[in-house]
């Protein structure tokens, strides 16, 4: 086709992950992702896309490429060390029912 592309092929804006704190006292929670040219634009877009109804009091944005994640393939070996340590849970210990405040 002879038609010229309206835009030269270019790398897309990088992907950012968005975390929103719903209200004071809560953790920031991952809500989704978006594309932006830079950090400031990512923050503005996050406000427009993820907090149109007062869903948050604080937003974090982080480049998706900067996140290091555990691999699902290694799930078992990675989490295995805590699997057999039942003594880390309070229910492991038998305390007589008549002992108060325990």
């Amino acid at each position, binding site marked *: 086709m002879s038609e010229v592309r309206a835009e030269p092929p270019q790398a897309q804006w990088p992907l950012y992950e968005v975390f929103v704190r719903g209200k004071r006292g809560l953790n920031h929670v991952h809500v989704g*992702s978006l594309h932006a*040219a830079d950090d400031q634009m990512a923050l503005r877009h996050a406000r427009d896309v993820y907090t*149109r109804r007062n869903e948050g009091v604080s937003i974090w944005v982080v480049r998706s490429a900067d996140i290091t994640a555990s691999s699902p393939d290694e799930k078992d070996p990675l989490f295995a060390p805590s699997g057999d340590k039942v003594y880390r849970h309070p229910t492991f210990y038998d305390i007589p029912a008549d002992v108060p405040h325990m």
Partner: protein
Amino acid sequence: MTTVDDVAPELVESFETTIGHHDRIEPRDWMPEGYRRTLVRQIAQHAHSEIIGMQPEGNWLTRAPSLRRKAILLAKVQDEAGHGLYLYSACETLGVSRQQLTEMLISGAQKYSSIFNYPTPSWADVGTIGWLVDGAAICNQVPLCRTSYGPYGRAMIRICKEESFHQRQGYELLMTMMRGTDEQREMVQESVDRFWWPALMMFGPPDDDSPNTAQSMEWGIKRHTNDELRQRFVDMSVPQAEALGVTLPDPELRWNEERGAHDFGAIDWDEFWTVVKGGGPCNAQRIAHRKRAWDDGAWVREAATAFARRSAS
């Protein structure tokens, strides 16, 4: 292409166990190529529908009859943009880029819901779209909150929370018009006459002509068949139409005591396929508009990239 034969049996087993437990598949889990492909098609089509869906109502933004209605309509159209973005993000977790998705929409390689190829010549259409089109969308979307692919389900949860406002504002708009003049009541009825059948078509082809449904249900992508959801929508809409005081344009629509559901007339599937294949009243206009917005926005995307590059150095 990776087929099930090429992959380690543990991976296939782990996938099937997760699906069997109605648990969620996450982006970095192994999944069969067909599962990924089906999801890309469905989520992309869904995202494109939200984006194209801004046009029929956007048509009325500058002509809304009051500031209140204009503010509501603006908020609604912004929501559609937001919903499109949630869904594009979910789709990108399957390894397809935003740019590819936009290009596939513009080239026609991917579809969007046929309902948005109908025109909105009347202000009452804004109300009817909220009531019937968003109502049908809600019927489709609520079960998708439990879909087996995690990012899709999470996007659907956000969307469903917001969608309820869309339906209620539309119904309220129609109620207001029904309390008005005879001419306004006629406008509502005329609009409902045009949108009722296309709204029923939103659930897709009948079950015996829907080749992907069985596999999609096996994978937990879909939770109900097209006909089940369509029936649910009809049963929900009938009392709403009565309360509103409009007649649904189907002489065969009546309660069937035995089935505990409404019987309704035959849908014109020829019309459906014509619109899906590009022959609807507004197909060309919708895509041309989207392409123009994309092309006209090119300099903004480039300028932002250049600015970011300069600020970084």
